[in-house]
């Protein structure tokens, strides 16, 4: 058997080269995968991005007509119109302050404020949500069109009283006629 230094080094070098080839394969594969995922994320983000703006900002023309945006506002109960046969729904929302710990108060004040900017929303093929009522917070996705109407694609509603219950003592006093 040949026990020279070269004969021992030969298979070691072979293994080393094989290891390097595997490493290169892993590196190239990894790079390709990272690039594919990055592409997916970037293209998905560019295609799905919606600016979350206030009614004020929408009406000021900061965003082009037809751009899909997300807006929020306080629902004015008396404006709700719904045709269950055609599933056409429209209602008006008033500009409200969103950075407040007291959501109920913000909604109440927005609905009562005659100077708060208002926007009428139109939705088609929309089942009237059970939570759509006066002083609910509506979060809408849709776009302002050239006719000045906001066409909503989806609506999410929150009723503050659903979460922030009045205290029992207050309710008892109210029930006894001592608000």
């Amino acid at each position, binding site marked *: 058997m040949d026990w020279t230094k070269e004969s021992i080094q030969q298979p070691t070098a072979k293994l080393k080269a094989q290891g390097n080839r595997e490493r290169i394969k892993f590196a190239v594969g990894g790079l390709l995968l990272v690039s594919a995922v990055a592409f997916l994320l970037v293209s998905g983000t560019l295609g799905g991005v919606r600016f*979350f703006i206030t009614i004020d900002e929408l009406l000021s023309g900061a965003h082009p007509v037809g751009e899909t945006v997300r807006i929020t506002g306080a629902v004015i109960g008396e404006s709700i119109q719904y045709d*269950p046969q055609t599933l056409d729904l429209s209602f008006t929302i008033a500009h409200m302050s969103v950075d407040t710990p007291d959501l109920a108060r913000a909604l109440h004040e927005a609905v009562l404020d005659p100077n708060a900017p208002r926007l009428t929303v139109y939705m088609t093929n929309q089942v009237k949500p059970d939570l759509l009522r006066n002083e609910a917070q509506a979060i809408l996705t849709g776009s302002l069109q050239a006719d000045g109407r906001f066409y909503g694609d989806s609506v999410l509603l929150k009723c503050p*009283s659903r979460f922030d219950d009045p205290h*029992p003592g207050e309710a008892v*006093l109210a029930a006894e006629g001592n608000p």
Partner: protein
Amino acid sequence: MLAEVGFISTWLSIALAVYAAAAAAIGHYRRQPAWTHSARNAVFLVFGALSVSVGTLLVALITEQYQLAYVWSVSNPSMPMVYRVTALWGSQAGSLLFWCWMMSAFSALSVATNWRSNYRLMPHVIIFQMVLTGFFTLLLMGVENPFARYWVAGADVLQSALQPAGTAAPALDALSSTAKGLNPLLRHFGMVIHPPLLYLGFVGFLVPCAFAFAALATGDLSTQWIKASRRWSLVAWVFLGLGLVLGGRWAYDVLGWGGYWGWDPVENAAFLPWLIGTAYLHSIMIQEKRGMFKTWNMALIVATFSAVIFGTFATRSGLVESVHSFARSDIGFPMLAMWFSVTFTLIVLIVWRQNAGHLRDDHPMTGILSRESLFLLNNFIFIALFIAVFWGSFGAPILSEQFFDTKITLGAEYFLNVTPPLFLALFVLMGVAPLAGWGVSAWRRIGQGLIVPLLLSIATVIGFVLLGHRTPITLVGYGIVALAGWVAAYETYRAVRARQFNLGEGVLTALGALARRNPRRYGGYLTHIGVVIIGIGIIGSTAYQRETQATLPVGGEVSLDGYTLRYAGFEGGQIAEDGRIMDIAIVEVYRGGQLLSTLRPRRDFFPQQTDMNSMTIAAAHSTLENDVYLLLLDWDEISQDNATFKVYINPLINLVWWGALVLIAGMAVGLYPTVTPETSPRRTVKPVSGLAEGSA
């Protein structure tokens, strides 16, 4: 009296948790086993004290103690018993108490079952679990005390845990007549079990993360921490998955939009730990088999638990706008601080151990087609999904608001574009990885194993074409998903056939023997089949949903996809047990002229609710093929002659729920104990001399 008992026991549990953590630290660092034993007993007492707290609130709900503010806000006299019990997790305070109780239960159980076999890890396991349990309980009592009571003093309303001087409690009948009752949205069987399952999933990951922390802190970085916590991880993972599916079922039944998953931030917050936990469950197999991925596994379990705390924070703080979220609450900042502290500490420990060379792998990565490479790829895709979902739900909105003075959100379109390719890649791997060998593997071996499953997948696709599902992209999806299922089924079939041939066993006997001999493999295959069934259900119900709407006179009909629905009559003003008033339409469903069922879609009115006082309840005729899902939108109040309906046909949707049951079966098999040399009783590691049980 109940309020005082609950109040005191909860504060006692906080004191005990602090004591347990401190005693465990003293026991370990001063090498005084008596302290460690005392810490263990304190863990059990924390569980006992929180059990008293939860029991107290439950008794208060059942016996209608409306002087407790929580009871008053989530129940009323007309609510049936089942909803009084589920009201325990019907609002922020109660559900947080329930969460803390579960944490204490998991802590006590994991300490009890690992005390002898993993004694060295116990002090740090106790420290981690008790710090977190103590923190969440303190947060509960500091911000959302569930035992708060209210008294009326003149026109002022005073809130206190104990009655202030000079005040008087309002009469009980005045309280009961104004009690609000459980939110109508939560009066559904899905809500009866969905939150506890989700919490079991969330809290379950506390245990493996505590063991990981203990391993990092003590330097015992063998696979022992994984072995000790593997079953906890598996149970947590399945419960989290079931919680997600049941949440979807609740949305499907209650929210009335014909779907079950809206890529809502809160849904996604629960989905994130499931994604990364799945990566972890796959990855730890490599460490157990080959001693590889040690740092990676640590990072994954830390990320999983970090995602759990972040998800809890996102849901409970009011951070995101969602139909599922709780109200904006003061618990946000402390919870965020805890999330950061826990995550940062664990990352520092991992980096420290990694730099010290304690997490070095036993083997290098070899062939690109080896099973470990494919598992790494599987992990990569799970992480990519995690990043994609996190970015869409939280990353983009938060970053844009913090750094660009604007707020952007990414809608459902983003998720529908980004996630399907990644999910399909996962299904491809689910099909290929089980056929690859450890260390090295060849295309040929994998290719041979794929021939029969590929043919079966093609047959499956042809079946879908015959069913009328003909969109090319969905057929590709069906094929890829089915391939993963057929690989699992065919591999099991081959093993059964081998036993039949060699040992002459019957099919069931052979299946049972396989499950006992290698529960992980065959439990894993069954789990894969469950996921495949869910996947097919998701593709079918998403891509082939049909809908229409119609206003019908009594006797009128509307047709959709071969079904005819006939409006047969109306039952107005029905009063249910919980006081709701129901207006019900009677609709007959026909197919080919044959009556299949009679549906009763309805609108419920809740007279005692001041906010959300009506709710649309869908009705459905369900088969494996599809759901005929019907909503009553409107009706003529006086004549009741005309009613408007919305009809959905949701193909294959029931596979989503049935797949979840198969998932449970897979978990049950996977949990079956494997007797290996490492875990056999003869080789169990005894407690270190001097720290042994009896030496205290």
